[in-house]
């Protein structure tokens, strides 16, 4: 069966520091991968998605970037964190794009920027 991992689970970082959050998927090949940010009372906002190695699309302009160095690895990064980057970051995967395709979510990373 497929599983999705995220680490770290929680992270406290000072403003201006770099960030690297990792997501890996097991048990499937060539998944679509997604990064979301969940803010309290605001649902989930799609930040990035990837349909293959090295293919990244950004949904919103921001201080963050994403990379997919391997088929089942998705990394969320920042060179210099802002206070506004605090939030709960979720990684998700799906088998293919398109209608009706369920996304499966990881456990998330709680990021606090001080």
């Amino acid at each position, binding site marked *: 069966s497929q599983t999705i991992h995220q680490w770290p689970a929680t992270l406290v970082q000072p403003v201006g520091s770099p960030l690297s959050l990792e997501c890996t998927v097991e048990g499937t090949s060539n998944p*679509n991968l997604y990064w979301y940010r969940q803010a309290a*009372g*605001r*649902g*989930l*906002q*799609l930040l990035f*998605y990837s*349909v293959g190695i090295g293919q990244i699309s950004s*949904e919103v302009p921001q201080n963050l970037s994403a990379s997919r160095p391997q088929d089942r690895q998705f990394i969320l990064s920042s060179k210099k964190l802002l206070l506004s980057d605090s939030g709960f970051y*979720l990684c998700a995967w*799906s088998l293919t*794009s*398109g*209608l*009706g*395709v*369920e*996304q*499966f*979510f*990881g*456990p*998330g990373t709680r990021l606090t920027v001080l």
Partner: protein
Amino acid sequence: AQSVSQHNHHVILSEAASLELGCNYSYGGTVNLFWYVQYPGQHLQLLLKYFSGDPLVKGIKGFEAEFIKSKFSFNLRKPSVQWSDTAEYFCAVNTDSSYKLIFGSGTRLLVRP
């Protein structure tokens, strides 16, 4: 732009009460609809989904939802809630061959024993 509205941000019920959580979306084309649930300390997981066919969809744990196209709605229902249903519920839509899921802001449900 497409959007999803969940009007009830916080709902408090007693056990055995009936539940209905509202979800409305704004999009005129073909949609697929989802309800996700996040129990305390757990992953976001799929509760039920609608692709096509019967607009009344049954999901896990006794939940169901009805797609009413004319009202652009996909309300979640459960006839009798349990304490273990305490969670945050998210409605989501994806449209016209899009990879995207557009989420509502979520509804926090607290069920009192």
